């Protein structure tokens, strides 16, 4: 038996072993784990210091200037909101289509969503000139007798992100309940307390299971609608402005596709790491990565299609101010970044993942890192060239480069993702245990 383990599909493993394998990483704290969490914590600490400098002295400590008023923070914002689409969207789509191979992936993906949203949601606050007044965007009866301006796309953002965070936390939480109920049974006292409280006294009765399954089906549908709208609205932050190369109708779907694309890449990396670090080779098999790779290829093509559509319409339209931005992107100042983006977002995935012989977990991870870089660049290329090439040519100005503060804060958010993920995977099984059982009822009907 042990020798044949490799070919056994995880669904056919004995349940006890699954449970044991998946719960094992939760217990025991190794030195490695501490270091893995401590290093990113230091990075976060430095990022926090950088932010405190920014709060103390003003936005002047960033690389922003007139007319490039948006820079790394907004790029980060779009990037992280994009990453957040990994989870919810993927797990919701796969759940709705009942794709069986999704099962070991969904939890990991949904966790990415929640953390990426928490991180991404910080940036609209970090980028404010007076961050300590961020709550002025909230609709609450205030002493200024003034409600916020609901016509502002930033209010749309706020509403959408609030809805999305709420939805995705619930979406992550619901399928965790049965697992936590199990975890509550044998464990250290404080963990037992925690899991007990969080599992709300789950007993595993068929009433509960029915409610859970129904809620998950509904949630999958709703969260899909929210996720699409969230990134559409993020895109509309740009598209609603009458700035050249922003005022585009395809920005909504373009951003959604880009978001899923980067989300998948993020998921690929996270899964490969989990697999390696937690010894879950049995559960996250080549099969899963293969499927993810195919999805990545699909999104890569879609992304290229949108990029092409976006640029060819601008080029053909030959609007003078758009052409300046177009030129800056493709020929002059940002050309290197632009073509690097096309290379890592399209050429690299197609070579590494499109050619069957080359397709492996390693190449998938390499391609995914490329895609993450490419998608970061994409957002940079959308934000900066438009702003630095104003409609009145005389107002155009020097290029934008981030300052150490912006870089530190950006790094801190990546570190934050690592820390949050490490904590999460120590507290909760990263693969939904109960979902592993084969569903046979439908076959019987």
């Amino acid at each position, binding site marked *: 038996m042990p020798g044949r383990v490799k070919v056994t599909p995880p669904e056919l493993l004995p349940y006890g072993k699954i449970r044991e394998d998946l719960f094992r990483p939760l217990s025991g704290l190794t030195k490695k784990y501490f270091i893995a969490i401590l290093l990113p914590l230091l990075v976060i600490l430095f990022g926090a210091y950088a932010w405190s400098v920014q709060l103390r*002295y*003003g*936005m*002047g400590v960033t*690389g*922003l*200037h*007139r*007319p*490039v*008023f*948006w820079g790394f923070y907004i790029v980060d914002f779009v990037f992280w909101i994009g990453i957040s689409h990994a989870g919810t969207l993927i797990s919701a789509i796969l759940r709705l289509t009942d794709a069986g191979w999704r099962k070991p992936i969904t939890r990991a993906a949904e966790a990415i969503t929640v953390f990426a949203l928490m991180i991404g949601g910080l940036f*609209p606050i970090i*980028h*404010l*000139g*007076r*961050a300590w*007044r*961020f709550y*002025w*965007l909230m609709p609450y009866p205030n002493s*200024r007798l*003034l409600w*916020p*301006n609901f*016509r*502002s*796309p*930033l*209010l749309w953002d*706020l509403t959408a992100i609030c809805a999305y965070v709420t939805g995705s936390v619930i979406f992550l939480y619901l399928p965790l309940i049965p697992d936590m109920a199990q975890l509550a049974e044998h464990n250290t006292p404080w963990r037992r307390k925690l899991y007990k409280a969080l599992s709300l006294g789950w007993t595993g009765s068929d009433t509960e299971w029915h409610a859970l399954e129904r809620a998950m089906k509904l949630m999958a549908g709703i969260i899909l609608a929210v996720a699409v709208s969230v990134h559409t609205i993020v895109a509309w*932050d740009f598209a*609603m*402005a*009458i*700035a050249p190369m922003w005022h585009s109708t395809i920005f909504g779907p373009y951003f959604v596709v880009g978001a899923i694309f980067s989300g998948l890449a993020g998921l690929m990396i996270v899964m490969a790491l989990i697999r390696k670090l937690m010894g879950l080779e049995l559960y996250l098999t080549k099969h899963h990565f293969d499927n993810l790779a195919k999805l990545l290829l699909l999104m890569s093509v879609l992304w290229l299609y949108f990029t092409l559509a976006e640029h060819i319409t601008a080029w053909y339209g030959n609007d003078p101010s758009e052409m300046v931005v177009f030129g800056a992107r493709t020929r002059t100042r940002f050309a290197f970044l632009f073509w690097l983006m096309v290379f890592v977002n399209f050429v690299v995935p197609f070579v590494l993942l499109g050619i069957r012989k080359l397709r492996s977990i390693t190449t998938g991870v390499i391609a995914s890192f490329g895609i993450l870089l490419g998608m970061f660049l994409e957002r940079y290329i959308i934000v900066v060239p438009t*702003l630095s090439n*104003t*409609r*009145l*040519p*005389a*107002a155009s*100005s*020097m290029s934008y480069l981030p300052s150490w503060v912006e870089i530190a804060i950006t790094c801190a958010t990546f570190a934050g993702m690592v820390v949050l993920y490490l904590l999460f995977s120590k507290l909760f099984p990263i693969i939904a245990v109960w979902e592993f059982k084969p569903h046979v009822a439908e076959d019987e009907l």
Partner: protein
Amino acid sequence: MAHRWGMAIDLDRCTGCEACVVACHAENNIPISTPEQAATGRTTHWLRVDRYYEGDFPDVKVKYMPVLCQQCDEAPCEPVCPTYATYHNPEGLNVQVYNRCVGTFYCANNCPYTVRYFNWFDPVWPEPMQLQHNPDVAVRMAGVMEKCTFCIQRIKRGKDESAASGQELADGDIQPACVQGCPAEAMVFGDLNDPESKVSRMAESSRATRLLEELGTKPKVFYLERGR
């Protein structure tokens, strides 16, 4: 009838001397940048004089164009502000309320004229430079957006004076600092709702154009083109 303030700038008169720029600084407590800040693009000029070189040597021409907030009737900066820090006042002015501003930068990004300026740091005036501050104009703190106000404090003062003296406001009684200072009298300010005002007549001129009119922002600054 309510006023509708507007400006006309005759580019044929403008010599690019930039007296208007200093007038604006003196009137509006505009922060002084340091060379380090200037090098990173943090200089503030509510009113700037753009220059465009055209033609080949020796028939090169320069077009000077004083660009200030165009006080658009349909201002793109206004709807995007989540806190109503920028809104439209009853006299058609595009008003910036510093206290409400949280600094989202959105208005500046959506301004096709790029006339919005940000306070990157708290402004510094070494003693005794603060004595020059115009008490009619707020000094802005770090983190808020600012821009040309058409010297709203002068409009207010003009209206107060007219109310106190019982004399109706005449065309030209109210002048923003830039208009007042312009040696070539290239800039004219007045009420666009008064068809007899100088600015209304200049706006009717066949030489009159508005900046980026095709965007539908309906600016209230009229430029009279050069050379005719």
